[in-house]
């Protein structure tokens, strides 16, 4: 039995806004703490469980504190073929004294290994926060880290 299609969208605003609301909360709090989840739930009239279930499903929602600059290294096949992934990851780990999933002691950088960034033509590719960087080399990373380290 198919449910009868309704002529009006039911409850169009509340739960469908959840991903957008989580982005806003993450922007404000830096990460999605219990408090942030609670607040989103209250604002949208959802249970904290409903909010947490969505927040924990998506990799871009962070359930623990993050560095000011989130470095995301692609480990996809195309990046690997062009010398990316592990060599790039190892270089950044050493350069910033950081582990995968960890944050540097000064709270400035965090490192994350991610799946294909759809930038295979620019392999190897990394992202720092929302910015995409292609054709990455050790020198390029060095330069980027130096620039970001000196920023306030």
């Amino acid at each position, binding site marked *: 039995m*198919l*449910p009868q*299609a*309704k*002529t*009006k*969208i*039911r409850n*169009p605003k*509340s*739960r*469908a*806004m*959840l*991903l*957008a609301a*989580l*982005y806003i909360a993450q922007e404000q709090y830096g990460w999605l703490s219990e408090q942030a989840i609670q607040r989103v739930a209250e604002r949208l009239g959802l249970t904290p469980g409903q909010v947490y*279930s*969505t927040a924990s*499903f*998506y*990799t*871009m*929602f962070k359930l623990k504190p993050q560095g000011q600059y989130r470095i995301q290294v692609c*480990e*996809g*096949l*195309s990046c*690997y*073929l*062009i010398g990316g*992934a592990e060599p790039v990851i190892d270089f950044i780990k050493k350069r910033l004294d950081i582990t995968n999933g960890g944050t540097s002691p000064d709270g400035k950088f965090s490192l994350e290994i*991610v*799946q*294909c*960034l*759809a*930038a*295979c*033509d620019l*392999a190897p590719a990394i*992202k720092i926060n*929302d*910015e*995409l960087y292609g054709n990455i080399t050790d020198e390029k990373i060095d330069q980027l880290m130096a620039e970001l380290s000196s920023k306030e």
Partner: protein
Amino acid sequence: MFEPVLTQNIHRPDSEKISTYLANGGYEAARLALTQYAPQELIDMVKRSGLRGRGGAGFPAGVKWGFMPKDANIQKILAVNTDEGEPGTFKDRQIVECDPHQIIEGVIIASYAVGANRAYVYIRGEFFLGVKRWIKAIADAYEREFLGKNIFGAGFDLDISVHRGAGAYICGEETAMIESLEGKPGNPRLKPPYPAQVGLFGLPTLVHNIETLACIKHIVQRGPEWFAGIGTAESKGPKIFSVSGHVNRPGNYELPLGTPLSEIIFEHAGGIRDGKRLKAVIPGGASTPVLTADQADTLMAFETLEKAGSQLGTGAIIVMDETTCMVEAARRIAKFFAHESCGRCVPCRIGSVRLFETLERIEGGKGTPNDIDYALYLAENIDGRTFCPMGAALVNPARSTIQKFPEEYQYHITNKTCWVNRH
């Protein structure tokens, strides 16, 4: 010499701006469609063109339009899939970043044809520039009254909004995308009912990949016969091929469906880097079975690739030269799928991880003689036994590399090291 159609604007300066688009005949196809054609005529037109979906499954677009209920009292929705995540694929990113109005024009025509007054764009969370380009393009289209009330005076209303995903490959699957648009985890729904019957918010929903939508305006403008005149018997029209890996010129190449794989690799993408030899190709994104160098003359079309034991998928060509370890390539893709399994059903949730672990064992020189059979056994028990098509997808890289490069797997197990480093 084939003249690009879908990518004809992307190299112009400021190609993403509405002024550039309008200066090159933009929105004329939508005007024509809404003022000169009845919705059913457009559906027939797209059926005659032979256009098949460009998001991976290759379902005939016109047939999908025909599935939407005709009752004007039922509210309908168009969902626009920009959740490009198949490793190797980067065509949608380029279209959205460089020519978003071409897609909006397709959205207007498709919405009018199926009677949808509301369109939802879903875009991958990682595509930050793409999100910005979508939002700006939609705002500009509203300002020129190509969106909103009474478009082109044809009495047709359409509203569009943009929704950002948040990092989940599975949300490219149409029902998972719908769940995500509703604010839930991206777990695929059982089909049937198909989205054309029960989709977003329970309403009939037409879901299209953006490359499919980009084809629409050209079909209206140049006619379905022109579109059907390009390609092969079962694969019509132009297609954007994303080429990456060991080639001299990685990038997107728009060519007729049915172009030989070898022509794309050696002519358009400039051949193999550093004068090396071609070893293997993944022709349609990470979920499609690998082809050997001997199969490089295969035509890039739905039916020809199927005959060759693979799939067209998204048309993402990953090229691997003789230095590539096929066990490592399969392991890497298996890791991707283990990470991206949504966890809803057991064969995929557990199977993807076991498959990855097995390949990792073999690759790392810890494999036992039974491991190859075990990997095939896992593949057998995942394929066709999962809730959504991801199960069939995730076994392809492992199974096809074991079938085509068995000596490399054997070498890894016997010698605890890699075949490509054997000299």
